[in-house]
């Protein structure tokens, strides 16, 4: 009997311990009207904390709790919470550009209408492609934060060795010619692509031409002229042997910093990765805008970027709004974002020294200035709620084309499949 009572009492003690833990953790959360909780991923955390410090100067009682989690984890938790009817959600959540419209469509009333709270006054401080992304029926449902203005990151050492001048690359045809020369002289690939896994280049080229997987009416547009042109450029690169297959993000970065490929067209945020992971390559980098499709055509595009949203379930939405309005429009806060390699979309700061300065890592080129000048020219496009499925189909088409299928045919088949999938 001793053992039985022992076991039972042990379980009792344990369950009491459990209950105690439970109470202490839940007790703190309820009813703190000065506390705002935010979900965000790594490089965004210091920016939020910096903002909270500044916000506190005028609102001494204010308290911000940032819950740091992985990017995908934010979506897992957010989706679960929203599906459970708005339970366990934070007061502020960070959502990427390509996910925003999906959430707004799937959970129409789940986010706070910030236009109602007066954010429209600040609308002009942000590029139109950002504010349009966050708008639905004329009202905004989030705060624009960072953007992903694109550029071609290139290795100056490889370009020099091949005797190619990056500034002379004005169109995608020039880009392909430069690639051929580089291939010939240095035997290095022009670009790293994951043809069976990701379609970043294709998306950039679509956005550059003012369209996307979906056109301005939100209809599927994989067979548009723009789409065909983009695929053609990509396929020519592939056929000429200028592409190095890099499967996944890590292989791509490592090809870049290892000097196996000469260029990487990408969003501004790539700066953070290459400066951290390619420390020894400082000074060997340069940047040009994306080549245009025809001489004098648009060279501005966007890849990535994120926004803050307030779930309607927040018990503290007013305070969260006040804080986020401060966060979004305070110039010092937004400048501090640049330390982590984030590119703020607040356009009132683009004449600041942080943007005009020469960047040592990039051979003293003022790259931030170049990127900032792009922002107002980035076309607004429709990601819609079906972004993920559409991307899946686009990658399939891209992969088929790389394996020899005709561009028209592959895009048409993908468009048909996509239409079936989203009906």
């Amino acid at each position, binding site marked *: 009997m001793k053992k039985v009572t022992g076991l039972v009492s042990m*379980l009792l003690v344990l369950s009491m311990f459990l209950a105690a833990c439970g109470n202490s953790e839940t007790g703190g959360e309820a009813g703190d009207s000065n506390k705002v909780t935010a979900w965000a991923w790594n490089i965004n955390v210091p920016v939020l904390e910096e903002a909270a410090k500044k916000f506190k100067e005028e609102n001494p009682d204010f308290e911000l709790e940032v819950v740091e989690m992985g990017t995908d*984890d934010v979506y897992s938790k957010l989706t679960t919470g929203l599906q459970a009817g708005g339970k366990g959600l934070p007061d502020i959540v960070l959502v990427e550009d390509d996910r925003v419209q999906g959430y707004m469509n799937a959970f129409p009333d789940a986010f706070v209408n910030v236009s109602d709270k007066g954010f429209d006054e600040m609308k002009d401080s942000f590029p139109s492609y950002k504010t349009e992304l966050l708008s639905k029926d004329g009202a905004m449902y989030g705060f624009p934060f960072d953007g992903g203005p694109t550029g071609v990151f290139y290795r100056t050492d490889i370009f020099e060795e091949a005797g190619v001048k990056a500034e002379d690359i004005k169109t995608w045809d020039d880009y392909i010619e430069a690639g051929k020369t580089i291939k010939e002289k240095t035997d290095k690939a022009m670009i790293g692509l994951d043809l069976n896994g990701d379609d970043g280049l294709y998306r950039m080229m679509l956005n550059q031409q003012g369209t996307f997987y979906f056109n301005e009416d939100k209809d599927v547009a994989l067979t548009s002229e723009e789409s065909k042109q983009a695929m053609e450029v990509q396929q020519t690169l592939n056929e000429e042997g200028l592409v190095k297959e890099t499967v996944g993000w890590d292989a791509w970065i490592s090809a870049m910093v290892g000097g196996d490929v000469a260029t990487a067209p990408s969003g501004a945020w790539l700066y953070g990765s290459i400066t*951290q992971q390619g420390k020894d390559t400082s000074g060997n980098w340069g940047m040009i805008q994306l080549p245009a499709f025809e001489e004098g055509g648009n060279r501005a595009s966007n890849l990535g970027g994120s926004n803050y949203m307030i779930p309607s379930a927040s018990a503290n939405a007013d305070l969260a709004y006040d804080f986020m309005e401060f966060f979004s429009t305070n110039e010092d806060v937004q400048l501090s974002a640049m330390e*982590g390699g984030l590119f703020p979309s607040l356009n009132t700061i683009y004449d600041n020294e942080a943007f005009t300065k020469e960047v040592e890592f990039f051979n003293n080129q003022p790259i931030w200035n170049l990127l900032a000048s792009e922002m107002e020219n980035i076309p607004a496009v429709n990601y819609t709620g079906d972004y993920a499925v559409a991307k899946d189909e686009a990658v399939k088409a891209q992969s088929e084309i790389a394996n020899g299928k005709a561009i028209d045919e592959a895009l048409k088949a993908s468009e048909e499949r996509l239409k079936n999938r989203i009906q």
Partner: protein
Amino acid sequence: MAKNLEVIEQSTNELTLAERQQKKPKKTKKKLKAVWMYTLLSIFLVVSIFPFYWMFIGATNDSSKMFTNPPTLLPGDQFMTNLTNLNESIGIFRVLFNSLFVSGLYVVIALAVCASAAYVLAKYNFKGKKFIFTAFLLSMMIPYQATLIPLFQMMSDFNLLNTYFAVIAPQLCFPFAIFLLRQNFLAFPTELMESARLDGASETRIFISIVIPSMRPALAAASIFLFMTQWNNFMWPLVVLNTNDMYTFPVALSSLMGLSYIDYGQVMMGVTLATVPIIAFFLTLQKQFISGMLGSALK
């Protein structure tokens, strides 16, 4: 005759020669086979050890070293730097405590629950027993995605979000453990239980003092499964835990995976730390674990 004999002798000689010739290659064949086997085994060894080695390389090098070409294959000197960085990012001790506490407590309670269930299903006869057992087994086929949201809603309604209890509770009754233990309990001699009954022992007493002690190997095997399940559990803790100081190891590690920048030095250090307790737990229970597995296989 002599000639004949000679012929016979010759032929026997020939035979033995032939035999010898046959034997020799047999030996070398055996040797060859062994060489081949060991080469194959060492390849498997390298393949299975290398990820762990790479993990260690990553943990002792700067993040940028993971991307050099050719790859860095020697341990670096960044062990302490990565450790301090990791500690700053996720708070190693708190997270380690959370994981150990959650997993340890889970093993104790789940083992008690599963062992009792398995014992009843193995040794008692009652109506609907088969049905209950089948239901347990079938529940293994429900994907966790299907239960995620209803469970989450439940925890939220009970006001249990962000508690250790919420992490542990849903999986306390673990069908696979019940199955594993039941198969082992089946082999326990019913005569022993009957004689104990004749001696006046209560049913609880029989279970705790007679059945359990002789089932140690099976219990050890089950507890390793339970420990591993809870230690590696990711999705559920991620969903129910809402503050960084409650995070378990996998969730905390995942929080290092940002969008464009990931410090692999920290990640690899974290993974190394997360692997150690599992190895330790396995090594202490290894003997029981293997005999427990064999036990259920032989019956």
